């Protein structure tokens, strides 16, 4: 019911950041470029831009207003359990029904804004869209927490030579 205004607040925040950043063309707050006589063209910054200057998606430029806030980290850690994130993504994001959040490899981007977008809007393989349920401050708390999970994890290579788990036969 009172959700729409939160979305509008988010969009206007984005709009403020976009207009402050370097842009090549006048854009409306959601990154859309009005095309005369046709549908609005929306920029997705990570996609190949054929022959055009690269423009990052609006989400990348979003700043986490709660970055570095220890209370946000604690709140995010608690919400990660309370909202059942841990049951899908595994305790501390190790991976379960949903993908690992510890591997430092972000399918939809690992910037604060992109992680915010993943939580708020959901993603195709069944990540639910929480934006209609949670206030932005809680989503930012989760963003703060989730982005700490991959610290120090190196998942590139596993070497099976040397001592292995004892296995008889074969």
């Amino acid at each position: 019911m009172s959700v729409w205004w939160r979305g509008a607040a988010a969009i206007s925040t984005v709009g403020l950041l976009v207009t402050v950043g370097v842009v090549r063309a006048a854009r409306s707050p959601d990154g859309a470029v009005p095309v005369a006589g046709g549908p609005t063209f929306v920029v997705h910054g990570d996609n190949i831009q054929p022959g055009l200057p690269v423009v990052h998606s609006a989400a990348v430029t979003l700043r986490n207003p709660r970055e570095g806030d220890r209370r946000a980290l604690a709140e995010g850690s608690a919400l990660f359990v309370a909202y059942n994130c841990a049951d899908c993504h595994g305790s501390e994001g190790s991976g379960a029904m949903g993908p690992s959040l510890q591997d430092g490899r972000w399918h939809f981007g690992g910037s604060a804004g992109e992680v915010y977008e993943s939580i708020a809007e959901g993603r195709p393989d069944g990540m639910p869209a929480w934006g209609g349920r949670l206030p932005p401050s809680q989503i930012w708390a989760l963003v703060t927490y989730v982005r700490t999970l991959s610290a120090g994890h190196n998942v590139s290579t596993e070497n099976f030579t040397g001592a292995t788990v004892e296995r008889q036969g074969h």
Partner: protein
Amino acid sequence: MEPKGWPAAAKLRALGGAVAPGALGALGALGALWALGALGALACSGPAGGTGGGGRVAGARIGTPAAGADGEWAMPAKDYAGSRYSTLAEITPANVRRLVVAWSFSTGVLRGHEGGPLVIGSSMYLVTPFPNVAYAIDLAQPGAPLRWKYRPENSQAAIGEACCDVVNRGAAYADGMLVYNLLDGETVAVDAATGVERWRTRVADPNRGETMTMAPLIVHGNVLVGPSGGEMGVRGWMSALDLATGRERWRAYNLGPDSEVRIGAGYHPFYAAERGRDLGVTSWPAGAWMHGGGAVWGWLTYDPALNLVYYGTSNPGPWDGELRPGDNKFTSSILARDPDTGELRWAFQVTPHDLWDYDAVNENILADLPIGGSQRKVLVHFDRNGFEYTIDRRTGEVLVAAAYVPVNWASGIDLATGRPKVNPDKATGIGRTVHGICPSLEGGKNQQPAAFSPATGLFYVPTNNLCMDFTGRHPTYIPGTPYIGADAPETGGPGGYRGEFMAWDATTGRKVWGIREPFPVWSGALVTAGNVAFYGTLDGWLKAVDARTGAPLWENKVSSGIVGNPITYRGPDGHQYVAVYAGIGGDMGALIAGDVAAGPPYDVRERGATLPDLARHTSLGGTLFVFKLGDSRP
């Protein structure tokens, strides 16, 4: 391939005697329970039989008439009884070492390949994990070419609602149609000759946490299906769809008021605890049954003479029992329903007020067995809770109950009531950790189905030996997200092995022989009139053993771990073939084993706690392997 170096520990082995609990933490006086032979008649299995001689049970029969042509595999479990037994006997212990790969087929899909193909006439039908493609293969042509592929529309969002990998346990076949479930909650029927979709019906709602993974059973033109989602706070049900049109004929819930559970004048449970008005409401705190679990994701069997379909229901939700005082009926129960009306005829709750995620969805194999001097019509059920139950399938009376794996959450089953005698030390709760509960939430056996041989009278059971610590925490019910409220890391059980393939006598509740494996045996079992039993391992070995003695006979390494169910059939050339999916996944392969699930480059997982070494032995795959006897050797 000659079996080389079968682990010494894997040979025939008595399980009697105490075994060290290992690193599970203090077990105290309950450590005595590890000595499975030490307790009295009520509780545990007796000591395992020794070597050789088998354990032949005379007079044992499959509980239903033979289905279809004996060279076919026309139902998910071969027949309505769920026997997974084939009368084909060309392959024998003397010649099985000549089995070689005849051909293979890539399913085009990764993730857990549970279930198995069907063979009707000279056609083989496969269903893959999500996106649930179906294939028809022409066995009569060289190279087994495809006849058709059916690639259904299937919503990706359902992937995020599937607790335990995006598996599919197979299709059913009737009236020239292949019928199976899509992960996103629809049942589809496909023309078996052309691959054209005939109908699709939405039966489940992923927005409420429901997905579909089970293999349907078709009885009297009723396609019987049920949802997954015991971990998602669903309210479980069974539906009957009209085979010709897909329209729902009836839906019966497993929780809630009698009118919706379809309890009426025809309901005659054996035990007093199952009798009473609206037990599906009154055995819960107010309203908790509305998202109390009781999902139907396991195997269905059917007795045509009694006209009863048998199935089990999942655990209650959430996993924390303190939030749902009461027995929580009819979760973790075995139900017998009339397939034409859905009416409940009897119920038996295997684990009342479950505190350990012990679903009761494992198969109920129908057999006629000599028990106590007379021939009894029974069902045999190897439950998650670690006990095997031999139950009179007319009434739901428990005749035999015995532990088939190490068990410590209960000291036994009281045959007067059928109820477990729970050890208070192993009861779980919110805000505290209980250490070393055996079996783990994966159970003594999970979805991997057992087989029954009337030739030996024995059951062939793929089992797990795992234990867990369990920490309850306060859950939140949010539709479309998990409703669990616990962390339960697992470790190997006592004895240093994590799985065992065993032969079991359900007339006395005893293991006859067992083959220990380093990993839980997550494949289904197959047994034949030729007295060969087959099973597959998580590290990718398909194995054949002598069904009478358990002697290892043959093994073949396939492309990926095996979580599916081997089948056997007579090919158009008249020879016997064995087929199985290779493709690690499912609960054990995808969730527990860590980076074995690292298919997509963005999803590389830390090694899981339970099987941290599995990823060294296998990776994702998706291939059907078909074997036949090769040339004789001198």
